[in-house]
């Protein structure tokens, strides 16, 4: 196996922005994604802003990994998803997980630029 999951993390104030640098969140990377998220969240910050702007495909294994990350968040650390592409949005909506996750419609770049 041995597939890596590329995540890029930037801590600014109390927001840890984590960008998934892979075009797919699928069964091939579900476990590495969970492991890597656990590792980068140790960097610090309070809110975790997970940027899925590069992810153009997610299956139910990828969804399961996202749910596992959400479940592993300490009580005081919100997880916010951003940059959702249509194929990712669809899976969240079909499974009604769009009502479980906090979804930020603005892109990470807009948020970091302080756009209102």
């Amino acid at each position, binding site marked *: 196996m041995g*597939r890596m999951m590329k995540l890029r993390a930037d801590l600014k104030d109390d927001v840890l922005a984590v960008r998934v640098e892979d075009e*797919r969140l699928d*069964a091939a990377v579900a476990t590495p994604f969970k492991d890597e998220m656990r590792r980068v969240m140790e960097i610090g910050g309070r809110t975790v802003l997970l940027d899925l702007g590069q992810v153009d*495909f997610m*299956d139910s294994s990828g969804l*399961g990994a996202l749910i596992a990350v*959400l479940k592993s968040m300490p009580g005081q650390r919100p997880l916010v998803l951003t940059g959702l592409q249509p*194929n990712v949005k669809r899976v969240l909506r079909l499974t*009604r997980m769009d009502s479980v996750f906090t979804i930020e419609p603005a892109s990470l770049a807009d948020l970091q630029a302080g756009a209102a």
Partner: protein
Amino acid sequence: MPGARGRTIALPQRSGVHPGVALSQAALTEIGPSRDRPAAAIAPKAMPPGGMAVAADASAHFCTCLAPNPFEIRRTLLQIRKQFVPLSDDDTVGRLELVLAEILNNIAEHGDPLAQNDRRAPHRKVHLSAATATGGIYCIVSDVGEEVPSHCLAPRPLPQQGGGAAVDLPEGGFGWFIIQLMARKLFYCRDGRRNILAFLIPQDSPIAAA
């Protein structure tokens, strides 16, 4: 299946019909309310000796064999996207990709473990055909392995989300729910040791992307 190096889907043969498409209509079990039959729309040409993804012609035919492991599944889905996007639309291809991912992931997880190593067990590979036709993209997926349990094919609700607390959220159990929601004319039949699933991804979906 003479001359096919074990790659052709092992279906009941009928004269004048290519063995790879000789789906016995009577043997098919339709899942869901539709009474239409999809198989006539699927006419994949003979698989090439290499057995890998090759467009039969300029229309959208796709035929391949793959070992059911996550990496070959990913590679196959990328090939399918590349082939069908110019001939369909992003939304339909997105739904095709999702349903195929769920079916293939199920095979990888619950199917014959020997099939995952394609060098040792080439005859156990998964066969996949997809073709555009009126109404959308028709697909057949066939694998060697245990019979699909009937509860997978029965109409199913979403996995319970628990009492609202994150800790109770289900992390799995969405696969067949998604397949049944997105695929139309879903048929299943068992042929010897093979499972055969046929379905349509409709062009006009009531469930669009965002």
